[in-house]
Every structure is written in structure tokens, then in C-alpha cells.
């Protein structure tokens, strides 16, 4: 592992050099929020971005893309949406999100659409400071050990830059003059102090180790019905979750001689038709059942296979759900803690 130092003024020139190699994507401002977008003007990059509205999965597996063209000649695969990209400004939680998607999209069978996009994406991480919704310390995703090519830690006057891969090293070698490999004792102390202060800055704490058992024990708890009554079944929680990977597939035909398309687009297990089979039988008719499935996957299912939750603590569900059904309120309810959120007002609406 090599750790280098980069002066703040040298970041833009460095990005300029590497962006000649591939599309550069980074967080930019959108209203009072942030989104990942392709950037050519580096002054647009929001260095202070907290979480983006949609996680970087949208670049690996776009919300909507074509898998195959089809005609009488058969099915021709389509990888035209995949290109060489550099993603700058991705935070540790989102890098962990990608590591989890890596597992989901390569277990048992390899998903070539995801993996090809992943292979052609360089990950340039950036440190961040928690706000009142961040809980990555609880999910142990506040630091990263793998899954990046370069990682920039933002200290007042300069960056410390971790080189995480051979490809990351190649990027540095494109303009080695920007980087200094001699860290002083003061640099190291500054970093330690930064880390200690950041550790103190988290405002949410969740004990995830208890959750698989609590999911089992509270399987029939009343709060699922309350949350189900309030849930709008809008699917937003899945759209913004870095580890939600579900998708739907439809075939589309066009007038004339154009080949048809087999389209793949994001889906959510909270949507009504998600578990519907041919003939209309629905295995999860009630919103409470679908919410329970969502949380089973985050808190229990991934744990049983990989030993950790598939929540990366990004806080997106906390800022997105219109009725406050999110990882904090649900884990609080599972713990039996008092929960004072919007959906608790729905006890009277539960029909049972």
C-alpha cells in the first residue's frame, strides 16, 4: 500500500490529465441535493457532497438499458451503454455498496452487464464527514480496505491519497509530479486527529448484530402492519439503496423493420406486482409483507451468506422515504425502542 500527498491546488490539473483517458463522473449539485454526473468542467464537482440522490449503481447498471436486440435471426447482446469511466468522489459507504453488488451479481452465475461495466470503471474514492443521517460507523462501512483504485482523504490543506490497485498506480504515473511520497510526522498526526474527530461526529448508532434474530422473533410484530398501512409502495427506498439489485425485464417491439429490444430496468420488492405470478396469484399482496421482505434482505439474508448486513449506512432511505419507513425507524421498532415517526400514526388504519 502506498500513501501519497496531493496539494489541493493540484487536484483539478490531475483530474484534467486522467479525464483524457475516460469519461469522468463525479457528484455535482442539483437543487439542494447532489447527483453523480459526467463532468467536463471540474469546478462543477461538489467536493462537499454528502450523499447523492441515487447511488453510483446507476452508472454500473443504468435504471433502464437494453440487454438484447432481437429479430428472426435471434438474440444479439447489446453492451453499447458500457464505456470506460472514472468515478471520482465516491464515499466509503457507496464503495461498500458496490462490493456488495459485486457479490450479488457474481454469485452462482456471472452477470456480464454489471461485471463488464464494473471492470471498465475506475473508482476514485473521497473521504466525507457524517451528517445527522449517516450511520456507516454502525455498519462498519465508514472505512475501506478494498474496492478502490485511489482514495482521497480530504485534510484541511491537502489530500492523502491511498493507492488501492495497479490501475490506480497507473493513474498516478500519468502525472507523478503532482504527488509527494514523503509524509511528515505532522501529516500523519493530522490524519489521526481527523479520523478521531470524524468518529465522534456520528449521531446515529444501530446494533446490527442483533438484527437477524430480531427479524425472526418480531416476524409477526404489529409494527409491520402499521408501517405497511403507511407505506405508499412507491419503491423509492429501493431506487436509492446502494445494495438493491432487483430488476424487471420486458420485451419491446417497434413498428417497421427495427429489431426488438429486451429491456432491463430497476424493480422494487415493495411494488405490488413484484411477486405476482402468471394468472394473478400474488404471494405478497400486503405492503407489510413486502416491507418485511425488504428488511429481511438488508438485515438477515445477506448476513446468513456473507456475515454482514447489506445496509451500508448511507442514510438515503432516511432522507428519501416520504413516510419515514427506514433503516433507523425499523431497527428501532425491532429493538422495541420508542419510535416517533410518521408511520406510527397509522395504527388505527391497520385492518385486522
Amino acid at each position, binding site marked *: 500500500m502506498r500513501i501519497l500527498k496531493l496539494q489541493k491546488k493540484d487536484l483539478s490539473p490531475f483530474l484534467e490529465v486522467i479525464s483524457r483517458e475516460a469519461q469522468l463522473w463525479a457528484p455535482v449539485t442539483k437543487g439542494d441535493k447532489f447527483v453523480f454526473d459526467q463532468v467536463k468542467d471540474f469546478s462543477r464537482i461538489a467536493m462537499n457532497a454528502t450523499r447523492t440522490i441515487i447511488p453510483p449503481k446507476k452508472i454500473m447498471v443504468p435504471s433502464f438499458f437494453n*440487454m*438484447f436486440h*432481437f*429479430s*428472426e435471426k*435471434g*438474440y444479439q*447482446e447489446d*453492451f*453499447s451503454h*458500457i*464505456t*470506460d469511466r472514472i468515478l471520482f468522489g465516491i464515499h466509503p459507504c457507496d464503495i461498500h455498496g458496490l462490493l456488495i453488488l459485486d457479490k*450479488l*451479481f457474481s*454469485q*452462482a*452465475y*456471472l*452477470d*456480464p*452487464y454489471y461485471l*463488464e461495466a464494473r471492470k471498465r470503471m475506475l473508482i476514485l474514492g473521497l473521504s466525507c464527514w457524517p451528517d445527522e443521517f449517516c450511520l456507516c460507523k454502525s455498519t462498519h462501512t465508514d472505512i475501506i480496505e478494498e474496492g478502490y483504485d485511489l482514495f482521497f482523504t480530504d485534510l484541511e490543506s491537502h489530500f492523502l491519497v491511498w493507492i488501492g490497485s495497479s490501475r490506480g498506480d497507473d493513474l498516478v504515473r500519468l502525472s507523478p509530479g503532482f504527488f509527494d511520497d514523503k509524509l511528515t510526522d505532522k501529516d500523519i498526526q493530522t490524519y489521526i486527529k481527523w479520523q478521531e474527530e470524524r468518529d465522534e461526529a456520528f449521531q446515529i448508532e444501530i446494533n446490527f448484530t442483533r438484527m437477524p434474530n430480531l427479524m425472526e422473533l418480531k*416476524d409477526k410484530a404489529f409494527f409491520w402492519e402499521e408501517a405497511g398501512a403507511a407505506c405508499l409502495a412507491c419503491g423509492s427506498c429501493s431506487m436509492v439503496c446502494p445494495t438493491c*439489485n*432487483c*430488476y*424487471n*425485464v*420486458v*420485451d419491446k*417491439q417497434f413498428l417497421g423493420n427495427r429489431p*426488438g429490444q*429486451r429491456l432491463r430496468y430497476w*424493480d422494487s*420488492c415493495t411494488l405490488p406486482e*413484484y*411477486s*405476482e*405470478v*402468471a*394468472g394473478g*396469484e400474488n*404471494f*405478497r399482496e400486503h405492503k407489510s*409483507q413486502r416491507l*418485511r*421482505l425488504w428488511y*429481511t*434482505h438488508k438485515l*438477515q*439474508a445477506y448476513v*446468513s*451468506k456473507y456475515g454482514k448486513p447489506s445496509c451500508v449506512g448511507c442514510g438515503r432511505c432516511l432522507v428519501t422515504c416520504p413516510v419515514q419507513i427506514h433503516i433507523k425507524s425499523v431497527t428501532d421498532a425491532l429493538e422495541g425502542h420508542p419510535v416517533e415517526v410518521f408511520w406510527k400514526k397509522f395504527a388505527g388504519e391497520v385492518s385486522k
Partner: protein
Amino acid sequence: MNGEHRCLTDSNPFTPEPARIIRSYPLSADVKFFQVRFVDMERALSFKYKAGQFAMLSVLGAGEAPFCLSSTPSRPGLLEFCIRKMGTMTNALFRLPENALIGLRGPYGNGFPVEEMTGKDILIIMGGMGVAPLRSVLLYCLDNRDRFERVVLLYGAKRPAEMILREEFFALQTRSDLECHLTVDADDTGQWPARTGVITTLFPHLKKTDPGNTYALVCGPPVMYKFVIKELIKLNIPKNQILMTLERRMKCGIGKCGHCAIDYIYTCLDGPVFSYWDVLHMKELI
């Protein structure tokens, strides 16, 4: 690099392989029998599968859906499916003439544990469309008859016209190495040659079973499971030797799209064959 066509077909598990409908004919008002073969003859013969597995079929422009294989791996070359007309995709499939091209990929799923079933009594219980997945394992047992002890078949349908493949089962009734019991809930023809009554009324006709040495395979409409399992528990068949094959919505068949998730498992990877024990300790399985 953008827009360049990259050929990853060899490694793309989503690519449907070209296959032809060799033969298709109706089995009932809304069920059809399909014989399908890969266009590439070598592929047709190299396609290995287990009884109880399923395949994804594509109809050009109408989409892709999972169907269980009704043929037995002990008769390679032709793949057979019993398919009920239900939605857009099956409607389009029903309209295709013989020799039409379709897409096929698979096989997927765990299938029946035929190795563990070796040397055991096999009790196959199917209701209505339950014949679709269980015909595969039934024919497999009959083709490898000396590897199993008793083979018993209970098959129930609502009415004679809905007992699909009934001629095949009438013919099987003449075999001395198969105990074959057929029943319909109600005979509206007046000419039904076998029994009448719901499927559980067949249980008293069973010869004494050795429960520890029996595997019961069940597939049918949801309401059937409840009553049939009660009978099997009465017979003292161990819960992990009661196997059932389940249906779920699937878009990929290979553990990616998420639709068939139940609790912490995927029906497409960990199923579709589950034991009654699995059903008891997982929510929402049946």
C-alpha cells in the same frame, strides 16, 4: 469505445439459445404439450439436466418466462413442457406453429435429489398442473426402475377433461411395477374409468408404507398441499423426505433479478424443490 459491439455470448448466461418447437398439441382447453429441441443437434444431446429443474423460454417479442421441464433426462434430445395459457407470453407461445423458433436457456434450479432417493419407495402426488414438473421425475424413476423400491403415483384432477396426459397415465396403469391411482373430483362425462373423489380419498387405497424409507413428492394447487401434507404426516413420513416443487415469478432464473426471493433464499437457485421442513421454517414458502 462507446457503441462498439462486444461479443460476450459465450459467457452471457442471459442469451437464449435457438430451439424449435418440434411438436405441440392441446392437452386440455388451456394446456398444451410442447416438444422442443435445440437447433444445434450437438447442443440438444449435450444438454444435461435433472428431474425437477426448469428452463427459461423466450418467444420473440412476447418475453421470457420460466417453465419446468416435463421430460426426463433419461431420454435426451427432446425437451418437453406442459404449459397452461395464462398471460401474454404463453398466449404468444400457443399461437406459434410447429417448427417455429423459440429461445431456450437453462437448466436452472436444484431439481429432485434423485441420488438420495435411490433405494427408497417413491410416492408421487400430483394435482392438476402438478403433473408438469412431476412427470419428469416419474419417468426418470420408471426409466431407472431397478434403482428404486416401490413407485406409487397419485394423480387428481377436477374433471376428466382436465386430467392432462390421461392416456399416458391409463397406459401406465397396466405396468405391474407402478402403483398408479387416478381420480377426478367429479365425473361430468359418466364414462370416467378410474376413481372419483378428491386426491386425499386415494390414501386409504395405498398399501402399507414404510415411512422412513419413503420419499413423497408433491405438486399441485395451493389448497392441495394443506390436505395432502396432513395425510403424509399421518403416515409418519419424515418432513425432510416430503418434497414439493414451487412456482414463483422469475425474470432471470439465475439469482440476479430478485423476484423469486423468499426469506433468505432464491427459488431459482435454492429451489424450486423444497422439503416440508424448509416450508415450516421459512416464511411465505407456500
